[in-house]
Structures are given as structure tokens and as C-alpha cells.
């Protein structure tokens, strides 16, 4: 779908569709929800273009709060205003809220099982692969712009390899990257 068609589509998404999309994102999200948000919103429902998704996630990452929760607010609001934001948020949070409480109660009764930890370890290894794929797909939006690739690598090295705290890294890199984009037009 073209950028324009996706951008022009605000309003055509029903509240029920918003709820079910975010319910699907959250219930698929073992070991991380964001790759599922990208897959559902960009690949499957085609509500956002790749670029629009990167833009929405930028907003969510630079704002405080859980990224995918922010994303439900931003996407829900864009298509359906306040009711949409509330609906997408409910789709994202209500079911897993009940699930973790149920699991917490089971844990209180039976304790932690080593088998579960091993299964979880396998799922975590695969889930990390989903995040790699998502990052590379998103990088496709600026892969031909050397300046942008350089800033992406800097941000990845600083917070990944060096493990520097995210806040100062953003505070330095974001203004520089925006200034560079502005100079080049």
C-alpha cells in the first residue's frame, strides 16, 4: 500500500477491529510484543506503511511509558480518537492482565517449575530473532541514506554493545540526527 493510501485511511478502522488487532498483538507477544505490533499493523492489516510505523514507534520510544502501550494509544487515537485509544489499550492490556494474575496464583500454589524455565529459554532465543527481523525491516526505510544508517549504528552501539543508559544517548543523538536531517532537507 502506498504512503498516501495508508495515511488517508484514518477513520475506516472500526473499534472492534482495533480491539481485535491489539488483542492479537498482545496474545501473540511471547518474549516481546513489538514485533507482533509491526507484523499485525503493517504486514497483515495494512493500517500503517512501514514508514508510518517507524514514525509512530519513534514517538512512542521517545515518550516515557511502555512502548507498545503508547503505540496502542497513538494508533487507536489516529483512527478513532479517544474511544479508539481506549479500545486499543483495553485490547492490549485486559487479557494479559488476567493471565499474569492467574499464573501468579498458580505460582503461589505450585512454585516455579524448571521445565517451564527451559521452555521459556527456548522461546526467548526465538523472540530475540523476531526483534532482529523487525529492526532490519524498519531499517529498510532509510537504508539508502548513509547519514541515517550512521545514526542508527551509533544508537545501536551506544545502548547495545556499550550498554550506556538510554536517556543520555537519546538526548545527544536525537538532536544531532534531527539537525543533520534538517541541513540536508
Amino acid at each position, binding site marked *: 500500500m502506498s504512503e498516501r493510501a495508508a495515511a488517508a485511511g484514518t477513520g475506516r478502522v472500526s473499534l472492534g477491529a482495533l480491539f481485535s488487532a491489539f488483542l492479537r498483538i498482545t*496474545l*501473540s507477544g*511471547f*518474549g*516481546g*510484543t*513489538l*514485533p*507482533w505490533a509491526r507484523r499485525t499493523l503493517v*504486514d497483515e492489516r495494512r493500517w500503517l506503511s512501514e514508514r508510518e510505523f517507524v514514525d*509512530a514507534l*519513534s514517538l512512542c*520510544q521517545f*515518550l*516515557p*511509558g*511502555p*512502548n507498545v*502501550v503508547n503505540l496502542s*494509544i*497513538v494508533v487507536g*487515537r*489516529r483512527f478513532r480518537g479517544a474511544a479508539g485509544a481506549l479500545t486499543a489499550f483495553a485490547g*492490549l*492490556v485486559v487479557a*494479559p492482565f488476567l493471565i499474569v*494474575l492467574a*499464573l501468579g496464583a498458580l505460582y503461589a500454589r505450585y512454585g516455579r517449575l524448571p521445565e*517451564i*524455565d527451559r521452555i521459556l529459554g*527456548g*522461546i*526467548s*532465543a*526465538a523472540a*530475540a*530473532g*523476531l*526483534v532482529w*527481523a*523487525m*529492526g*532490519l525491516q*524498519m531499517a529498510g*526505510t*532509510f537504508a539508502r541514506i548513509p547519514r*541515517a*544508517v550512521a545514526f*542508527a549504528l551509533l*544508537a*545501536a552501539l551506544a*545502548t*547495545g*554493545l556499550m*550498554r550506556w543508559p*538510554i536517556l543520555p544517548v537519546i538526548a545527544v*543523538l*536525537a538532536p544531532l*540526527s*534531527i539537525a543533520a536531517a534538517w541541513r540536508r532537507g
Partner: protein
Amino acid sequence: MKTASLWELMLLFASLSLVAVGGANTVVPEMHRQAVEVGGWMSDGEFANLYAIVRAAPGPNMLISTLIGWEAAGLWGALVATAAMCIPSCLLAYAVSHLWDRYRHKRWRRDVEAGLAPVTVGLVLASAYVLTGAADQSWRAYAVTAATAAVSLATRINALWVLALAGVLGGAGLL
């Protein structure tokens, strides 16, 4: 173990909500400090188990706030902690995204978007790197990570099948 008041929980999670730039995982160490060392609501091992439960369950990791609230003050604690973790940052996201969309066609807005995009993607790749280091202890686990990324990039296979297969391999002790 002590019990927390709902007021305490609300203040704690509402303030964490507004400093959690980069996601809930960035404030887990602070949650740990408050819940275990300052509040004395649970032991170190209990906290680790609650975090393991949240990571095993589907959904966002910020639901660690739900289980901390539950452990510290029961069902109302769970509700208050979850709401406090979400509401302040959600209201902010709502207001800012309204402005963000309103100026969509301005030149400066496009420059900001173009500048933020690479930093955002860099942070995603960094989290992929950190998650890989945390999850993978053997070459087989690295192979699972790489294969999942490749399958996800190259095919339209539902990744839940891949996650399930990886869970089976892990459960069988093969990773």
C-alpha cells in the same frame, strides 16, 4: 513481608510511568529496589520469580507492575499498580500524538521524523542484541535466534510456530 498501601503503590508506579523512556524494562531495577529493599514487600527470589512469570506470559512486560501490586497489596494492589503504570504515560502519549499528527505536513515535522527514525531503529537493534545475549548460552540457541530472524524476514510463516518449536527444543533440553 510487609504490605504496601494503595497510595504508596500509586505514587511509585505513576512516577515510574513518567520516567520509563525506552520502555518498562528500563525501570525494572528501580521497581526491584523499591519492592525488595525499600518497601520490603517481597524477597529477592520472589521478585525474580514474578518477573519470570511476566516474561513467560503473553503481553507487555510492564505487567510486572501488576504482579508487584498483587504481591504487595492483593487484587486492588494489582489494579492500582497497573493503572498507575499506564495512565500518566498514556495521557501524555495521547496529547503529544495529537500534536504530532496535526503538524504532519510541516517541513520541520518531517525533519524531526527523518532524524528520529534512525535513532529509533538503532534502539530496536540494540534491544535485539541485548535480548540475544541474555537468552543465548549455547551455539544452538544462537542458531535458533538467527533462524527465527531469517524465517521472519524471508517468509510469511506465522512466527508463533517458530516460537512454539523453540519452546519445545528448550523444554527438551536441546538449547
